Structure formats: structure tokens, C-alpha cells
């Protein structure tokens, strides 16, 4: 019986290269069938190692990985039936596009007609029909990338792994490829495990994101939850922009807590990772959740001094000195032509205590 919710399962997986440091620690991760899951994290966080263990190029030091309920640690890579897109595409430079795509089919002894049919289909999927005869070095970076995606999908694998496939492309191309990969995933419904260190990419493409740091999954949730409700200060800081205040819990109720900042002022926050009075904490607040000239029902209202104004086209970023934090960032939409946003002016800032999340101190 295949288990749709646990199509790929990492069960208490540890990995160490040198026997001294664990690059992956006690990893438990379930990936559902047809899901697009992204492993996101800074370099050295263990995300690529996880991918390599799933692909079969590394073996777990401890624990087991299951694919469709079967343990796969002892299955060599070529028998796993997992497609993979590599960071530098890894197209075979001595073969034409057609031969590159036919390779996984040929080794599976697929008939010639079937190969032609499948290669045609895969190429039209990445809109590269008519490129069969080209050599990889005659293609642009984006085209090579599409060929690599097509090659990883052409043999109908159960799972496709992508190891920072868009890392070498320029910004515009990267964005359009993100949508393209997302659409391909939606149309064929294959399970995709995607590795990246680019949070924008992760947020755009994934059903769920696993944020890695220090060999551990810090948070596994959907993009919106990850952004709106980070569970610890690493995730809050890693995903999106973030204003922080460090302090100590002064008072605690069920829904709210008072945090006494180092400057002595108290703010009201949403207790996420703090348990009791006296706990050290970092309060995290998204720049767009703080507004100028707050309405009355907001329970945090403070005065700040404008230190810097940076024009960003569609919005303006304002750096404030607020409650002793000189790096407090505010995003002001450009439509509101406010004349008083000038360096040196004092303005009123407010936010709801629900959006100020009191997380663990680092």
C-alpha cells in the first residue's frame, strides 16, 4: 500500500562526513505525493546533503529514507528512478539534445518509436521543439536549463530533485523559469524536491518549504505561514525582511505579553516562544505591518525619527530610529504622497501586538 502523505519519508536521518560534525541531525520529513517541496537554507545548512541522500549519491550515517514505503538506503542511484536536475545542468556535452533526452530511455531499453514520442513530448513541454539536433553548447543558459528539466522528466520518474537549478541564470530569466517549472509541476503532478538558498524562489514555487539551518529543519510549512508566522527567530530573519527588538518578558498573559526592551520601554507582543516572565526574547515585526499615524485600536504606538529614505520605485523604504533600534525599516507605498517623510522628521508608528512575535533569543 502506498502512502500518499508519506510518499518520501526521512526517518531520523543523520549524516556526518568526517565522524565529528553532523551536517544533518535527526531529520524527520514527510513529503506527500505530487507535492512541490523546497528545502531552503543558507549554504552549509545540510539541504543539498539531504537531496544527495535521496538521490543515492550519499548514504545516511543513521536512519532510513523511504520512497513509497520502501527503504532505499541500499538501492544504488540508477535503480531509484529519481530524476535529477543539477546546479550546472550536467547536460552531456558530446550528445545532442535528442541524445541527452533519449539517454534515460535507452538505458531502460525503451523502443525507438516510444523514445521519439517521449522526447517530442518532453521537448514540447519545455517549448524547445525543433532543438533536437543542437549540441548543449549551442544553447543559451535558459535553454540548457529547460533541456535539463525535460531530461529529468522524460522517463516519468516518481520524484524529481532539483539542486539550485536556476542559480546560474540572470534575474529575469530566473523568474520566468520559476513560473515555467511551477506550471510543469502543476500539469504533470510529479513530486518535486527543490533545493535553493533563494527565498523568493522558494516562496513563489513551493507547496511547502522546509527551512534548514545547522542540519535541522527549523520550520516546515506553506509559504504564507512561513512568512506570516515564523516559529523562531532564525526563520523570521531568514525569510523576508524583519525588524527586531531584543528584551525580556516583563509580564505574561495567554494571548499577549509585555516585553521590556533594553532601553527600558515596554512593548506588547504575541508570545510564541516565550514561556514565562523573565525569559529573554527577540520580538520580530515585518516592515509592512507597522504603519505611520496608527489607528486607535493598535496597541503599540511609538514615535520614531527618520534616519534615511530610500526610493525603491513602487515603494519607499524608510529607516527609523525607533525605541533604540536604529535599523527599524518601514515600507511606505508610493501612492500616498506624504510630504513629511524626510530625514530628521519625527513620525508616529503603530502596530498590532498580534504581528509582533516574541521569539527565542538567538
Amino acid at each position, binding site marked *: 500500500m502506498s502512502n500518499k502523505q508519506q510518499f518520501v519519508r526521512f526517518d531520523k536521518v543523520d549524516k556526518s562526513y568526517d565522524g565529528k560534525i553532523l551536517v544533518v541531525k535527526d531529520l524527520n520529513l514527510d513529503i506527500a505525493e505530487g507535492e512541490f517541496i523546497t528545502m531552503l537554507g543558507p549554504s552549509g545548512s545540510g539541504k543539498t546533503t539531504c537531496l544527495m541522500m535521496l*538521490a*543515492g*549519491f550519499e548514504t545516511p550515517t543513521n536512519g532510513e529514507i523511504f520512497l513509497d514505503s520502501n527503504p532505499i538506503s541500499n538501492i*544504488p*542511484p*540508477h*535503480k*531509484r*528512478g*529519481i*530524476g*535529477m536536475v*543539477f*546546479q*550546472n545542468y*550536467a*547536460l*552531456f*556535452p*558530446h550528445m545532442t539534445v535528442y541524445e541527452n533526452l533519449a*539517454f*534515460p530511455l535507452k*538505458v*531502460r531499453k525503451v523502443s525507438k518509436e516510444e523514445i521519439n514520442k517521449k522526447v517530442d513530448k518532453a521537448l514540447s513541454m519545455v517549448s524547445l521543439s525543433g532543438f533536437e539536433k543542437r549540441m548543449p553548447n549551442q544553447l543559451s543558459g535558459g535553454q540548457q536549463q529547460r533541456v535539463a528539466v525535460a*531530461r*529529468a522528466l522524460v*522517463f516519468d520518474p516518481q520524484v524529481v*530533485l532539483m539542486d539550485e537549478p536556476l542559480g546560474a541564470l540572470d534575474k529575469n530569466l530566473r523568474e520566468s523559469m520559476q513560473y515555467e517549472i511551477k506550471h510543469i509541476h502543476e500539469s504533470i503532478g510529479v513530486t518535486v524536491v527543490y533545493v535553493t538558498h533563494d527565498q523568493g524562489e522558494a516562496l513563489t514555487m513551493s507547496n511547502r518549504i522546509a527551512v534548514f539551518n545547522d542540519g535541522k529543519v527549523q520550520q516546515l510549512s506553506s509559504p504564507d505561514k512561513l512568512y506570516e508566522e515564523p516559529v523562531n527567530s532564525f526563520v523570521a530573519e531568514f525569510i523576508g525582511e524583519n525588524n527586531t527588538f531584543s528584551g525580556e518578558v516583563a509580564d505574561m498573559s495567554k494571548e499577549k505579553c509585555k516585553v521590556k526592551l533594553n532601553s527600558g520601554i515596554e512593548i506588547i507582543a504575541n508570545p510564541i516562544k516565550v514561556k514565562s516572565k523573565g525569559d529573554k526574547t527577540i520580538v520580530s515585526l515585518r516592515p509592512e505591518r507597522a504603519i505611520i499615524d496608527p489607528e486607535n485600536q493598535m496597541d503599540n504606538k511609538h514615535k520614531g525619527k527618520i534616519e534615511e529614505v530610500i526610493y525603491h520605485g513602487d515603494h519607499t523604504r524608510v529607516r527609523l530610529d525607533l525605541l533604540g533600534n536604529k535599523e527599524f525599516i518601514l515600507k511606505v507605498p508610493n501612492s500616498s504622497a506624504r510630504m513629511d517623510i524626510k530625514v530628521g522628521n519625527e513620525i508616529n508608528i503603530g502596530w498590532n501586538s498580534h504581528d509582533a512575535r516574541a521569539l527565542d533569543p538567538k
Partner: protein
Amino acid sequence: MSSETQKILTTDGIPLEVSLKKTEKKNKIKAFLLVCPLLFFLLLAYISPIVGMLFTSVDDRMVTNMLPKTFKAMEDWDGKDLPSEKIFEAFYKDYKILVDENRHGKLATQMNYEKNGFKSILKKLARKQKKFEEGNYKEQIMSVHKRWGQVDYWRAIKRRAPSYSYIKYLKGVDMYQNEEGSIVQVPEDRRIYKILWLRTLEIAFFVTLFCFLMAYPIAHLLATLPMKYSNLLMICVLLPFWTSLLVRTASWMILLQQQGLVNDFLVWIGIVADDHRPVMMYNKIGTYIAMTQILLPFMVLPLYSVMKTISPSLMRAGKSLGGTPFVAFWKIYFPLTIPGIGAGCLLVFILAIGYYITPELVGGASGTLISNQIAYHMKHTLDWSFASAMGLMLLTGVLAIYWVYNKLVGIDNIKLG
């Protein structure tokens, strides 16, 4: 549109094209001056000796200049009957000058190459001619030795009349021009060069093969090991490179001789009996072993430089797409190393085909190559024109191999580093 582009001028009013050419000309001259020393050196040390060799190999003016009157008189002699008195007289006069100037020894040597038995009758003539009287030289010369009355010898002289000849090339492939002037093979028991050419090709081929078989895994290891170990391995590969060729060959002599280390070891572990020690030196085996070891780096380095550029993710891609490790190697890795294989094989083969010092020292009689024969003629028989002819034949052979390789693989596919 084109008229517009043609009329582009610089601010000084000079057409842009002219101005561009002017600037580029300066650069070209600079570049040429930079390569000048090398060009000069190549001309002096490489091209001119080859031209010289080509000349020496066909040059046969020595005999022509020694017997000018004789060859002039022989011009209308058909070579069927004994020459007339006129030719005998001309020959006597030429030879007398040579004897007086004490240059007749060289003629004797040269004529003896052409026909055996010439040396002795020429020497005898040199002694006897002092008492010759004027007139009727034919009879006087014939009375010196009966061979002077044989038409073969006179034909042999006539054959040496042209200033240039290709007989050395014929000799290099065990052929000669017989008395009727047609080109035939020498008798079977005297064919040595053909065997030598074939042996040279055979040894070069197998040395290349052995080098390839040994170098491929080493180069692969070098390219894939972590830096820490690969550096050490690289030094091991290069160490012989930094040791004198002679020392390396000599060390093989110490190892391979019958009382040498390898044999001692084989006897000690009991594989061979003490009185049946295998002969590993002064034969082909010795040449194979020593040359393979010495030429190995020339195979390792081009292979390594190519393998270094092959991304390890290609093999991974091959495996993840379903290829077994062997298929991934054979269909992906191996084809990508072909430029290195080509470069290494060509390099080793060309070096091996002209190898001299190692076969000379460890080859013995059955392990020597054509180059040893060339050296022999340079140093011992002093037949430089024959040595030049064989050297040029070797060079032509190498160029032919290069040409074939270019046709098969393409020379721009080669990668030396």
C-alpha cells in the same frame, strides 16, 4: 547603406578602415618581433637540419666529382660490352689524380658499397699504376686484376655517375637497384631494415597501449581525489620526469638483469627456480617495460588535464537517469576523455617510434629500434647519407601518422593541457 558605412572617417579625416589598418599593423609588427627569436631558432635548429638531411640523403656528388673524366667518357657507353680504351684512359687519369692527392681511399669505400670486391682491386690499381706506361690503358688496367675485365664492375661505376640518387632510400627498405637497373628486394637472409621498421612500429604500438591502460586509471584518480592526496600522487607521476632519463634506464637495468632485484624477488618467493631466471633485459621485454615506465607521464598528463575538466555531476547525472555505473562511464565519461586519449597516444607513439637511449641500453639485439640503426650509421659506418635517409623516412612516417590521426579524430580535438 554600404556607401554610408564606407564613408566613416576619423576626426582627422582619414577613412576609418585605413586608420584601423595602420593601428593593427603596428600590433602585427610587434607580435612578429616577439616571435622572431623563436622563428629564427626554429629555422636554425630545426628546419635547416631537416633540409640538410634531405640533401645529404640524396647527395651522391662525392664519386661524381672524383671521376669527372670517366663519367664524361661513359656518357655514350651502353653498358653491354666492356668499355672502350677511351673510358679506361679517362678512368686512369682520374684515379691517378686521386692517388696523387691521397683521396683514393674514399672512392674505394664508396665503390665497395656499390659492389663487393671493389676495394681490393682499387687498392691494387693504386699500387700498380705508378709503373703504367702511356697508351693502351685498357690492357694495363685489366692486367692488374682480372675483375677489371668484368663488365659488372664498370657498370657499377657508371651507376654512381648521377650527382643525386635515391639508393639510400631503397636500402632503407631492403631494396636495391640491380645491374639491369630495376628495383628488387635484397635476398631474404639479408633483409634487416624491414624487420626493424616493423619492430619499431610494433614496440611503439604496444608501449602506447600499455601506457594508455596504466595511465587511464591513474589520471582518473588524480582528477577525482581530494587535493591533498592528488598532489602527492601528481608528484609521484612527475618524479620520474625530474630524474635523468639515463638514470631511470640504468635503474631498470639494475632491476631487470638476471641477478637483479626482480629476479631475486621472484626466486625468493619461489615463483621461478634459481637456475631458470627469466631473461627480462636485452630483449623486447626489457624495452617494453622501460619505455612504458619512461613514457607514462606523457600519457598521464594530457589525460589528467582533460579529466579535470569533466564535471563529476555528469557521471551523477548519468547514474540518476538510470545508467549503471558502467554505462555511465562508457557512454558519458569515456567519450569525453577522447581528446586526452588522442593527445596522449599520439604523443607517446611519436616519442616511442623515435626512441633511442632506452632500447640502446636495455634492448639488446631483439629490442633495438630503427633509431638505434640510424645512430649506428652515424657513428660507426659513417654512412651519413643512409642515416639521413632513414631519419627522413621516420619523419615522413610520423607525419603520416599525424595526418591519419587528423583525418580520424581531428587535430583540433586534441588537448594537451
